[in-house]
C-alpha cells in the first residue's frame, strides 16, 4: 500500500494540476446549474484519477486504501476551495450506508459507481421540524401496507435534496413504542410520486438545504436498510462512518495567517493593529488553540497509523474551532471599521471574514450543536450523568408536546 507521505505528495500534485479547472477562481460567479456541473465534473475527475472512494474496497469501485489516506487527501484538498460540497453527505454518509445495508447488492454496486462518478447524488432525510438535536423525536410515519410501506411526513434541513436522485430516511413505524424503538431505516427514490422538495435559504442567502414533504410515498420493503425497529441504532452507526474525516483547526473558516495579514494593514487610533495588545492576545490564543487541535489531530493520525484507536479528544475540534472562528471573524470585521461593511456574496468562506461570520452560526448547530457536543463529551468521555429525560421509556405518542 502506498505510504502516506508519498500519497500526500501525489494528492497535492494532482490537486494543483486541476486547480485551474476546478479551484475557487474557476467556480467564482457561476450560475447554480453551471456550478453543479462543475462539481460533477470535478467528482468525475477525482474518480478517474483514483481519488474517489479512497478507503472503499475495490469491489465497491474504491481504491482499497485506509481511512488515513482519505483524511490526508481531504486535508490537501481543503485549501483549494474545490466544488465538492454536493458530495459530502452523498459519499460521506448515505452511499456508505447503502453499501453496508442495502438488500440488493448488485443494485447497490451500480449506485455506488454512479455516485463516485458524480452522476448521482444522495441525500440524508433525518431532521424534522420537531427537532434537530432530538433526532429520535422524529414524526414522519412509515406505515406497513402489504409488502410495501407508505411514508407521510416532513423532513427539514435536507442538504442538497434539490439535486438528489436518492435519499436515505429514518421514519417511525410504530408510535406506540418508546421513541428510540419505533424507528426504521429505508432508502428512497427522490423522484418517486409524493416527494416534494422545497429549497429554502439560510441567513447567508444560500439555498443548499431543503424541506422535503412526503405524501403517501410508497416504497417496497426491499428498500428497508435496517431491521424493523432498528432505525435508531442504524442511524447512530452511520454517524460513526464520518469519524475519519479531515478536521480543521480553523473551524472551516479563514486561516490565522489571514488575520495576521489583516492586522498588519489595519490601525487602531493611528497605531498598527499588530502592535496592539488586544489583537496580539487574540492572535496568540487562537494560535495556541489551533496548534493544540492540530497536535491532537496529528497524534490521532499517528495512532491510527500504528493501528491504535485514537483518543476521544478528537471530539473537541468542531466545538472549539467553530466557536473561535465566529469571534475571530467578528473581530476581523470590526477591526476593519468602515472598510468592513462590504460583503462579496460569491467569496469563499476560507477567504472572506463576512462569509465566515455569517455562516458560523450554522456550523455551530449543524452536525451536533455545541450543547450536544458538550453533553457527549461530559457523558461519554467523562462519565457524567445524562440529562433528565422524561421522554424515555414511554410510548412515543405519550411524550408531552
Amino acid at each position: 500500500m502506498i505510504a502516506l507521505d508519498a500519497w500526500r505528495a501525489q494528492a497535492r500534485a494532482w490537486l494543483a494540476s486541476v486547480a485551474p479547472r476546478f479551484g475557487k477562481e474557476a467556480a467564482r460567479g457561476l450560475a447554480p446549474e453551471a456550478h453543479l456541473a462543475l462539481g460533477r465534473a470535478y467528482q468525475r475527475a477525482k474518480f478517474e484519477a483514483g481519488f474517489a472512494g479512497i478507503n472503499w474496497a475495490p469491489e465497491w469501485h474504491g481504491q482499497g486504501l485506509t481511512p488515513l489516506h482519505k483524511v490526508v487527501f481531504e486535508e490537501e484538498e481543503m485549501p483549494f476551495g474545490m466544488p465538492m460540497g454536493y458530495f459530502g453527505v452523498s459519499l460521506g454518509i448515505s452511499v456508505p450506508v447503502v453499501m453496508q445495508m442495502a438488500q440488493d447488492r448488485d443494485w447497490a454496486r451500480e449506485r455506488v459507481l454512479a455516485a463516485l462518478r458524480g452522476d448521482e447524488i444522495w441525500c440524508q432525510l433525518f431532521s424534522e421540524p420537531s427537532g434537530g438535536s432530538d433526532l429520535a423525536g422524529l414524526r414522519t410515519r412509515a406505515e406497513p401496507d402489504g409488502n410495501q410501506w407508505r411514508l407521510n411526513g416532513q423532513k427539514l434541513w435536507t442538504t442538497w435534496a434539490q439535486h438528489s436522485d436518492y435519499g436515505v430516511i429514518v421514519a417511525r413505524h410504530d408510535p406506540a413504542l418508546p421513541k428510540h424503538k419505533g424507528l426504521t431505516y429505508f432508502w428512497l427514490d427522490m423522484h418517486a410520486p409524493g416527494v416534494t422538495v422545497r429549497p429554502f435559504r439560510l441567513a447567508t442567502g444560500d439555498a443548499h438545504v431543503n424541506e422535503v414533504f412526503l405524501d403517501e410515498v410508497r416504497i417496497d420493503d426491499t428498500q428497508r436498510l435496517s431491521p424493523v425497529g432498528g432505525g435508531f441504532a442504524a442511524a447512530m452507526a452511520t454517524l460513526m462512518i464520518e469519524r475519519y474525516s479531515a478536521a480543521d483547526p480553523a473551524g472551516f473558516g479563514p486561516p490565522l495567517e489571514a488575520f495576521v495579514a489583516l492586522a498588519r494593514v489595519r490601525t487602531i487610533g493611528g497605531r498598527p493593529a499588530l502592535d496592539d495588545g488586544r489583537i496580539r492576545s487574540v492572535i496568540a490564543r487562537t494560535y495556541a488553540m489551533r496548534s493544540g487541535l492540530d497536535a491532537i489531530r496529528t497524534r490521532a493520525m499517528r495512532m491510527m497509523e500504528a493501528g491504535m484507536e485514537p483518543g476521544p479528544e478528537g471530539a473537541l475540534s468542531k466545538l472549539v474551532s467553530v466557536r473561535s472562528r465566529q469571534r475571530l471573524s467578528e473581530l476581523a470585521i470590526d477591526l476593519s471599521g468602515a472598510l468592513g461593511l462590504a460583503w462579496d456574496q460569491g467569496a469563499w468562506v476560507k477567504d472572506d471574514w463576512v462569509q465566515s461570520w455569517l455562516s458560523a452560526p450554522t456550523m455551530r448547530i449543524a452536525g451536533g450543536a455545541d450543547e450536544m457536543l458538550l453533553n457527549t463529551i461530559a457523558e461519554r468521555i467523562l462519565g457524567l450523568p445524562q440529562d433528565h429525560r422524561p421522554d424515555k421509556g414511554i410510548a412515543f405518542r405519550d411524550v408531552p408536546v
Partner: protein
Amino acid sequence: MSILLGEDQVAFGAAAGRLVAARCDTAGLLGLLEPAGRDDRAFWAAAVADGWSAIVVPPAYGGLGLGLVELGQVAQAAGAAPVGMPWLAPGAIVARALLRGDDRAAAQAWLPRLAAGERAALAFAEGCEALPGTPEVRWRQGALRGDKHGVVGGLAAAVALVWAGDGTGPVLALAELDGSVARRGIDSFDNSRLPADLAFGGTAAQVLASGEAAHDLARELMAAWAVVLAFEQLGGAEALLWRARDYAVTRRAFGQPIGAFQSVKHRIAELYGLVEIARANCLHAAACDGTAEFARAAAAARLSATEAYDTAARDCVQVHGGLGTTWEGGLHLHMRRARSLAAECGNTLRWEDWLVDAIAGIAL
C-alpha cells in the same frame, strides 16, 4: 436630569414602539437586505410625521426641543425591529453640531430641514479609522476634496457633516451632497444602512468648527452618536432576549421545554444581565448629557450595548438551533445589524481606548 424616565418620556418611547410594530415586519425588512441602495422610505416618512426627526431640534427651528433621553427611547424602538433606514442618529447629530457650532446662518438654514426629515450623514471615517487623527479629506477655500469611507446613508443623504483638514488643523464642515460628490455604493451585509464611499470633488461646505474646537466638538458628537446607537443596540438586544426566552419556554426537545436545560436557561439569564447593564448605562449617559461625566458615560453605554447586542445575536440564534439560521426566520437581520452598529461610530477597540483616556486622564 434624572435617571428615572418621566411619564412623558415613557409615553414617547411607547408611541415609537407602536409605530415600529405597525410599520415594520420581517418580510419587509428581508426585502431590503439584498438590493443595494434601498431603504424603507415609507417608514421614515411615517417616523418624521411622528416627530422622530424633530426631537433634538429646538422649537424655534420647528423641532420638539427634547434631548438624548427622548431620542434614546425612539432609537431603542427602532433597534428592536431593527428598522430599515439609517436616518435617525445622523440627523440628530448634525442638528447637535449646528446647535453647538459657530455658524448661525447654517443653523437657520438646516435645522428646519433636519426637523422636517432631511436625510443626513456623518462622514467622519477614513479607512478603518472612525475619526482619523489627520483626515485626508481637505477643506480649502470653501470646498471639500477627497474620499470618505463607509458613510452610513451615504447613498441617499442630502447633507453630510464632514471631518476634514484645512491644512493647519481639523475642521467640521457641512456640505450639501450635490453633483460634485461621487457616491460609490457598498454592497453590504446590511444594505438598508445605505453605506457608500463618498468622493468629494470640490464640494461646497460651510465650516462649523475648526482647530481645537473642531476636535472637541467632533469627540463630543461621537459621544452623542454613540449614545444614540447604544440605545438602538439595546433595543435589538432586548428584542432578542425576549425572543430567546419565548422560544425556550415553548420549544420542546427530549420531552421538555428547552428552557429547562441549564445551558439554555443560564445563557438567557446571562443575556438578561448584559441587557440590564446596557440599559442602565444608556439611561445614565443620556441623563448626564452636558456634564463632565458625559464622555465616560457615553463610552460605557457604547461598550456595554455593543457587548449586549453581539452576545444576544450569537446566543439567540444558538438557542433557536437550526431555525435561528434560516433566511425567513429573520434572526440574521439582528445579527447583521449588530455587526453594522458595532462598526458605525467606531469599533469597540477605539471606544475602549477613548474610555481609558478619559478615566486615566490621558491627553488625547
